């Protein structure tokens, strides 16, 4: 075998459409693969059969595509409710841009942009009931917004002033999980608990294409299938795991993995908020009525960097990027509303104003976040403190108090600017002069 035969095939399973397709051929906006697999085969392999079709209800030009199977699931989404989804998407994009700016201005340590994934997140999150429970990764800030998380709470963790942004039980959404895929097991366990309790609440696990390579995700599917857990595995295939294309994670469409576990799966156009809502509702209904888990692959695209620390120009083909920009999920809804005569200047003006207000709130809230007091580093390790921790806390408190006595400054607890207390030390002379 030649070395070249061993090279992984990195071709995405869903090639973005050409610009021409995107603008003129609604039905093929995201082409339905008819033959499995990448184009660059270097050796023989068995024919795995056709890839599953992709659900799409809104074409990129805003035309409504009839779908007898899924239409009934969104029959209640009249213009007014679609406008509400549109507003959510505009607001979360604005918040995302604001948070990215806050990071660039040094207010946040890091931010994971969701640009391009608004339909996938809003469409699925708005399908949930308040008593459902979300277990997410760190990019689901639009989901969190839909669950009722405040704009300030969205940035708390990223500013570094708290380990969590919100009380999970207050909003029905767990603290985001940074370890890739770990939360899919939590969702499965929660769902098993719902079944034990005899309620029809559903747990939803959000994760990405990269996570589907993690053992935890596979084990979650094993457990969910075995216990017929009311859980929805909502995978946003945004084509990238930092710099690794989805073709490195899987040789087949991700949705194909689930049936092997006995879990029904569906591929949906993740940039189509209507289609995402429909398939999520189908999955939720299956879970609520004892049908067990569903795997949703929402095919979308991460148009920004992995996080604000990433440089996608090192690995993204600009032409591919542009093709996905043409598939913008918000523009698609606007075109639909335009066709319906609902996209008025008044509407866009109102929505833009709401988005700006939310962004201003986020900015103000972010500026208002103070560093927690130093001794809070010892808080919430155990439900009842251990003697060890109490000893370390009291020793560190005494250590901090030592500086206060020397400088006559206020109590150690207020501590945002340490320079004032350390300024008398020779070692700090060079940097702390201003505080002496």
């Amino acid at each position, binding site marked *: 075998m030649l070395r070249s035969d061993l090279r992984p095939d990195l071709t995405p399973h869903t090639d973005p459409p050409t610009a021409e397709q995107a603008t003129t051929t609604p039905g093929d906006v995201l082409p339905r693969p008819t033959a499995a697999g990448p184009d660059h085969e270097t050796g023989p392999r068995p024919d795995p059969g056709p890839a599953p079709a992709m659900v799409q209800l809104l074409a990129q030009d805003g035309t409504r595509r009839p779908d007898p199977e899924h239409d009934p699931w969104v029959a209640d989404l009249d213009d007014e409710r679609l406008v509400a989804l549109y507003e959510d998407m505009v607001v979360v994009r604005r918040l995302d841009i604001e948070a990215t700016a806050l990071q660039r201005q040094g207010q946040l340590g890091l931010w994971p942009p969701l640009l391009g994934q608004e339909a996938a997140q809003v469409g699925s999150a708005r399908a949930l009931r308040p008593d459902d*429970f979300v*277990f997410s990764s760190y990019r689901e800030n639009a989901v969190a917004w839909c669950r009722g998380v405040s704009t300030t709470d969205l940035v708390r963790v990223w500013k570094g002033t*708290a*380990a*969590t942004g919100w*009380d*999970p*039980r207050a909003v029905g959404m*767990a*603290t985001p*999980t940074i*370890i890739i895929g*770990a939360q*899919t*097991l*939590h*969702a*499965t*366990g*929660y*769902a*098993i*608990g*719902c079944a*034990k*309790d005899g309620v029809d609440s559903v*747990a939803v696990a959000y994760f990405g294409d990269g996570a589907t390579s993690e*053992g*935890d995700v596979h*084990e*979650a599917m*094993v*457990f969910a299938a*075995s216990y017929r857990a009311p859980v929805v595995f909502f995978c946003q295939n945004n084509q990238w795991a930092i710099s690794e294309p989805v073709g490195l994670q899987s040789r087949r469409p991700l949705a194909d993995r689930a049936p092997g576990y006995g879990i029904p799966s569906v591929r949906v156009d993740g940039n189509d908020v209507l289609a995402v809502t429909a398939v999520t509702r189908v999955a939720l209904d299956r879970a609520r009525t004892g049908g067990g888990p569903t795997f949703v692959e929402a095919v979308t695209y991460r148009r920004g960097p992995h996080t604000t620390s990433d440089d996608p120009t090192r690995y993204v083909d600009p032409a591919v990027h542009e093709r996905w920009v043409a598939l913008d999920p918000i523009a698609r809804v606007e075109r639909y509303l335009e066709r319906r005569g609902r996209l008025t200047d008044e509407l866009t003006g109102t929505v833009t104003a709401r988005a700006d207000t939310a962004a201003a709130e986020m900015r103000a809230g972010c500026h208002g976040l103070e560093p927690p007091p130093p001794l809070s580093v010892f*808080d*919430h*390790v*155990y*439900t*009842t403190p*251990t*003697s*060890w*921790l109490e000893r370390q806390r009291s020793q560190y408190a005494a250590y901090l108090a030592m500086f206060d006595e020397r400088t006559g400054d206020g109590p150690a607890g207020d501590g945002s600017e340490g320079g004032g207390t350390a300024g008398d030390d020779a070692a700090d002379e060079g940097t702390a002069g201003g505080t002496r």
Partner: protein
Amino acid sequence: MTALTLGGALNAALRRALEDDPKVVLMGEDIGTLGGVFRVTDGLQRDFGADRVMDTPLAEAGIVGTAVGLAYRGYRPVVEIQFDGFVFPAFDQLVTQVARLYHRTGGAIRMPITVRIPYGGGIGAVEHHSESPEAYFAHTPGLRVVTCADPQDAHTLLRQAIACDDPVIFFEPKRRYWVKGEVDDVIDGSTAPMHAARVVVPGTDVTLVAYGPLVMTARDVALAAADDGISVEVIDLRSLSPIDLATVEASVRRSGRLVITHEAQQHGGLGAEIAASITERCFFHLEAPPVRVTGFDVPYPAAKLEEHFLPDLDRILDAVDRVLGREHSLTGWRG
């Protein structure tokens, strides 16, 4: 009071926990019909149903990860890891999730999960069935780590662990599963808390700290030493995180000499932590450097070699001689 084996005392504790709290669920491989490979869950699925005593797929990360979700939902999962060497697939969930969720959520979400792990050697087993991985967990903030040495403590500590709102890694000394003893199932205000160490043999000349399977060995050491006119005080730590250093410190202040023994490898082990902490706290009361008697810093050996790996009566007695400055050290070491 009932005479029970250590395994039987654990079984009784699980039964009692299932009776007392409808939110307690047991999860693990082969814990249902089979009753667990050591029969610790024998009869529990029969009596409480498959909904509360759940046979799980063979995936340790899956078991612990779903336990996290159940805890989110208000359940109190008790997980069985079949053997010590099988816990590592779950290590990520334990260290990055179970241990941290209470802290991560600012106290909003509690993780009252008990993870039972049969541990330690001495049963002639194949690889991955004789490990002592307690230090990995004791090193992790947010986890409590306990181990039992006799049937009474097995029963009491397990019920306390299940009732605890923090996650507890509960190490069961598998070679002592068949040791018998009287068990009182009353837990009240006079019961020692889970984090407290216990002086199991009082003495004056040397403090010998042990836990889990080696407590019984340590008792034998005290008896043998007494024949030589040496009074050894044996402390059973019970809790490995946090460690009840106050009890150890009080003993060492009297004896001036400290020997620590555990089956786990020495480097970075609990013996090192205890020696360092006690040296910091009562350096001027020490008559000799603390000595550790532990497994060697090698992978757990094949069954026919394990007697050379495991601390035994003679190796610990030798250490007692060392801290006393006696000349006839068995291995030729000099203190």
